[in-house]
């Protein structure tokens, strides 16, 4: 990948902060932690109406907003980690980057093929739109997480194992 598409190195640190924060936030909101926290803070209960007479749906909007913010925070963090330069971006690092992209694409392809084979053999498939959305999300995340892991593994393990 040409260096002109890459962000400055400082974005890697921002990404390393944003990605786990977004991921934890996203999972927590999906598990209802945020709603329960709001109930706890306001003293409301889940019986239909809040103390102020607002329906429980009153909590829906901030919940959705925080869900979207954390999800995009997670994706932005992933983007920053993947697309930021190393401190010294040279031809060797560019080659590792390219190899990692190729390997990630291969892994994603194998994931797709295996998933469809399993679906065919077991005669099952993801249920509803949410199931398919989760499948697509997993395959996208697999690509990026595999890329980041492979790239950093090769770069930093070689450094550790060959120093003198």
């Amino acid at each position, binding site marked *: 990948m040409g260096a002109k598409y890459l962000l400055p190195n400082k974005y890697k640190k921002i990404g390393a902060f944003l990605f786990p924060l977004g991921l934890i936030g996203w999972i927590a909101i999906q598990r209802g932690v945020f709603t329960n926290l709001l109930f706890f803070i306001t003293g409301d209960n889940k019986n239909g109406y809040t103390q102020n007479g607002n329906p429980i749906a009153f909590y829906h909007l901030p919940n959705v907003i925080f869900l979207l913010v954390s999800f995009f925070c997670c994706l932005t963090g992933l983007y920053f980690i993947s697309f930021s330069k190393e401190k010294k971006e040279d031809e060797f690092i560019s080659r590792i980057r390219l190899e990692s992209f190729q390997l990630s694409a291969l892994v994603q392809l194998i994931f797709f093929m295996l998933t469809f084979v399993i679906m065919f053999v077991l005669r099952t498939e993801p249920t509803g739109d949410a199931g398919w959305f989760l499948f697509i999300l997993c395959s996208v995340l697999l690509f990026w997480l595999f890329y980041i892991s492979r790239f950093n593994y090769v*770069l930093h393990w*070689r450094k550790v194992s060959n120093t003198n």
Partner: protein
Amino acid sequence: MKNSIRIERAVKNITQAELAELINVSRQSVIAIESAKYIPSTVLAIKIANVFNKNVEDIFILEDND
């Protein structure tokens, strides 16, 4: 392709980090080149040779299977 960078470094008494600084690459690159895990571009090979005041073919030696 083998190379004599490690020997030349020892002769000139410079570390991998110092060589990396001189040729403007990362230390990981020097480690990979030195251990023959990565064959550098022509430009980088010439830069390395210049650091040691040698010809490129004195530093990088072709092997039979290349």
